[in-house]
């Protein structure tokens, strides 16, 4: 930055091209604003490059591999197959190809909308001015009327299991392996650890979990995690609960078990998936005089920070750190900047885990609703009673749909499901909550037979005391 740099002025400056920042840029440009998006590390952010999409690709491939392997071992449905072979390098390449296609698509969309994208690293001098070091080493100064911060998050590193050791990997590293490890220890049985751990187990890795809490997926109640626990058990995946990872050993990972005793797991690789933290360093946040809320940037219900004209969205502003929340916030901020009146007031932010089986949670669980002072009724419908689930071999995993409604007026307060493919039901669940549906609305909506969605209508009927396909 020694020499004088050129200065550009813009209406809207967005930092970060992930699932919060790039939709914000597209919408702002669509609305006629002058937009510069600065991104380093690939448009699409964590989501497209090393999160949601690549992990789903690997999970899909792993499921395919497991199915074929199962047929090879025991022919079923009249299908037999030879033992499948895995080329991990090819799998990773296929996934990378997919990622490239999608990130390229994002670039195309931004361009079509008229947003300017800079491949570079921004560093703020004050709240409205930043210096961008471009990919080619050139620097430039940007003065913006409005700033939208969307810097995202990174994996939390454990000091005693640093990512610079080749045997220790983060979720990013796990998605870039060129060789399938024979054994893997996963530290952390939250959704990221479980999704990836289960995928590797399907590919044939011997996976063991070490979780500090006394249960997996602590955000969901036990009834919902039971089918996953069952899958892990039947697929020879060890789960060490109430245990603390200690250190890398010659052959694996040492940990302190629930009784406080030292133990060891064989692990060619150790995947550390203990959470994510917002990216708040390295880009001049400290020069912006913005209030924080814990590790996150503090924002109001319009995603405005304490500094006038500076907004923050996505993982940077707190839980839940989910792509779709960031996208919704990004769109909203763009519209606010264009002069619209908007507020971030969703009834729910749906959440999904692509575990085996999958989990969806929208709104309040019965316990949460009771804690909020509601008197509730619930209805539960098991997929074991649903033809489509059985036809897809999805009924045997103990999955179900459960709806929670207010007793007095039957307003649906929460919908939770666990089972194969249930993540795709999340849209209908969220719509029901946003539209203020009552149990009668769900039960009165014709659901296609045969689909998994029938289970939702049946759960509403069950809550009303009139299920058709389970005995009362």
């Amino acid at each position, binding site marked *: 930055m020694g020499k004088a740099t050129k200065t550009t002025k813009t209406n809207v400056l967005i930092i970060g091209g992930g699932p919060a920042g790039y939709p914000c840029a597209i919408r702002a440009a669509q609305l006629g604003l002058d937009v510069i998006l600065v991104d380093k590390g690939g448009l699409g952010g964590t989501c497209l490059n090393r999160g949601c999409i690549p992990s789903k690709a690997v999970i899909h491939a792993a499921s395919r591999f497991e199915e074929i392997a199962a047929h090879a071992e025991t022919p079923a449905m009249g299908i037999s197959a030879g033992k499948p072979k895995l080329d991990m390098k090819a799998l990773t390449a296929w996934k990378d190809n997919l990622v490239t296609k999608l990130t390229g698509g994002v670039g195309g969309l931004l361009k079509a909308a008229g947003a300017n994208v800079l491949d570079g690293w921004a560093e703020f001098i004050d709240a409205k001015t930043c210096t961008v070091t471009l990919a080619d080493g050139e620097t430039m100064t940007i003065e913006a009327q409005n700033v939208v911060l969307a810097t995202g998050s990174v994996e939390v590193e454990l000091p005693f299991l640093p990512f610079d050791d080749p045997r220790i990997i983060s979720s990013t590293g796990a998605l870039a392996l060129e060789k399938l490890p024979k054994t893997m220890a996963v530290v952390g049985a939250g959704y990221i650890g479980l999704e990836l751990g289960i995928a590797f187990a399907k590919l044939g890795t011997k996976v063991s979990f070490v979780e500090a809490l006394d249960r997996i997926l602590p955000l969901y109640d036990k009834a919902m995690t039971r089918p996953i626990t069952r899958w892990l058990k039947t697929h020879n995946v060890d789960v060490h609960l109430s245990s603390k990872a200690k250190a890398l050993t010659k052959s694996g990972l040492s940990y302190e078990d629930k009784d406080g005793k030292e133990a060891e797991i064989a692990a060619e690789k150790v995947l550390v998936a203990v959470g994510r933290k917002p990216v708040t360093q390295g880009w001049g946040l400290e020069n912006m005089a913005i209030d924080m809320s814990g590790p996150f940037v503090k924002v109001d219900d319009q995603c405005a920070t304490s500094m006038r004209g500076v907004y923050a969205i996505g993982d940077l502003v707190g839980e839940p750190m989910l792509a779709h929340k960031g996208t919704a916030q990004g769109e909203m901020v763009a519209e606010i900047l264009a002069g619209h009146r908007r507020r971030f007031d969703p009834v729910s932010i749906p959440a999904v885990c692509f575990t085996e089986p999958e989990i969806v949670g929208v709104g309040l669980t019965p316990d949460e609703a009771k804690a909020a002072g509601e008197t509730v009724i619930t*209805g539960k419908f098991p997929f*074991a*009673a649903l*033809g489509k689930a059985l036809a897809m071999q999805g009924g045997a995993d103990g999955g179900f749909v459960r709806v929670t409604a207010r007793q007095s007026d039957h*307003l649906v307060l929460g919908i939770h499901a666990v089972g194969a493919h249930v993540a795709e039901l999340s849209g209908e669940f969220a719509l029901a909550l*946003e*539209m203020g549906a009552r149990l009668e609305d769900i039960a009165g909506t014709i659901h296609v037979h*045969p689909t998994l969605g029938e289970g939702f209508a049946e759960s509403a009927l069950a*809550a009303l005391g009139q299920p058709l396909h389970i005995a009362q």
Partner: protein
Amino acid sequence: MGLYSFKLPDVGEGVVEAEIVEWHITPGQNVKEDDVLVDLMTDKATVEIPSPVSGVIKELTGDPGDVLPVGTVIITIETDSVGETEEEAPKPESAPAPEPASAPEPAAAKAEASNTPVEEPKPVPKPAPVAPSAKAAAPKPTNDGERPLASPAVRKRALEQDIDLGAIPGSGPAGRISHQDVDDFIAAGGRLMAGSNPGAREKRTGTHEQKIIGLRRKIAQNLAHSKRTIPHFAYVEEVEMDALEQLRVHLNANKSDDQPKLTVLPFLLAALIKALPDFEQVNATYDDDTGIVTRHDGVHAGIATATPNGLMVPVVHHAETMDIWECAAQIKHVTEATRNGTATRDELTGSTITITSLGALGGIASTPVINAPEVAIIGVNKLQVRPVWRDGAFQPRKMMNLSSSFDHRIVDGYDAARLIQRIKQLLEYPATLFM
């Protein structure tokens, strides 16, 4: 760990039921012995019920406003100690709900003949019966703190048009606000969000339902009973108060510090004490059921008192034994105790005739409702200077009306009028009060 069943206690003589006024505890809460569990109300006394044991509240029976018979188990407490055998509660009838039948009928079988014998399903708990469909209650605006129920599009529109959804009564199921509701609201000149148009006249569209419980319900019941069963006979007369006021001011100016300030009420009470022996049918209580009138020699004067919770009538017992100062002191004592909530049960019961006064708010005339089973109530209206025709000219006089009601079944109009005239004379010539 033992379960202690707390039964609705017998809180007063002959009380067979009590109303839950307020819970001081919630299930799951820890209580120590003597912590207040619940407020119960009988007759007109509200009693705080302390916990006899320490433990964790498991279950509560009844909501505020419910009237339950004495002996009902209203609280189950899990005690720390073992073997509360005496009061050990029976195990709750409903065992924990078993898991739903593990092998329910697959939906795929829906087309198959239903006569195929299927395995007897395991007993599945019936869900608690629910209302067939939530009643279409009259639309009402959302309460404070509760989120208005509306679709994202309606929410967005409201924000853009500066409309507070909380102020719109939703006509849809569960009070859902539709686009039509927003249209109607705007067409009706609906309120804009606070701050956006200050000074605009707002339409007040709210209605607020409140269950009448506790003291208010008791008041409602008593007054309704009184008005329904007693043929009220009202009588209004004016009293010239100059002489009495002169005396009253003099007494107050020269009283000793330990003497209470005198208001008009103790003088009225003194007049009643003096007059009632000649009107024994007025100082009486009448039992509708047995048809018996009980005439009382003693004067037990109820003093209608406004409290933060509503109207109560504490009693000055045996006023006939008191001089004017004692009457004043006693009136002050019982009304203050009642307002503070420290009045004893005795101080709240047993009146034979009631005096009611709204003081400066007394108005010109009123029609007081008799405090059954009494048969008379004497109301005091506002004292004010009025022109009185006397000796060929208008003269300014301190005039005060007495508005009284009598149970016409027991008290004839002629007697009622004579009583009030007697009181009038006593008050107009206050020396006669003390002779």
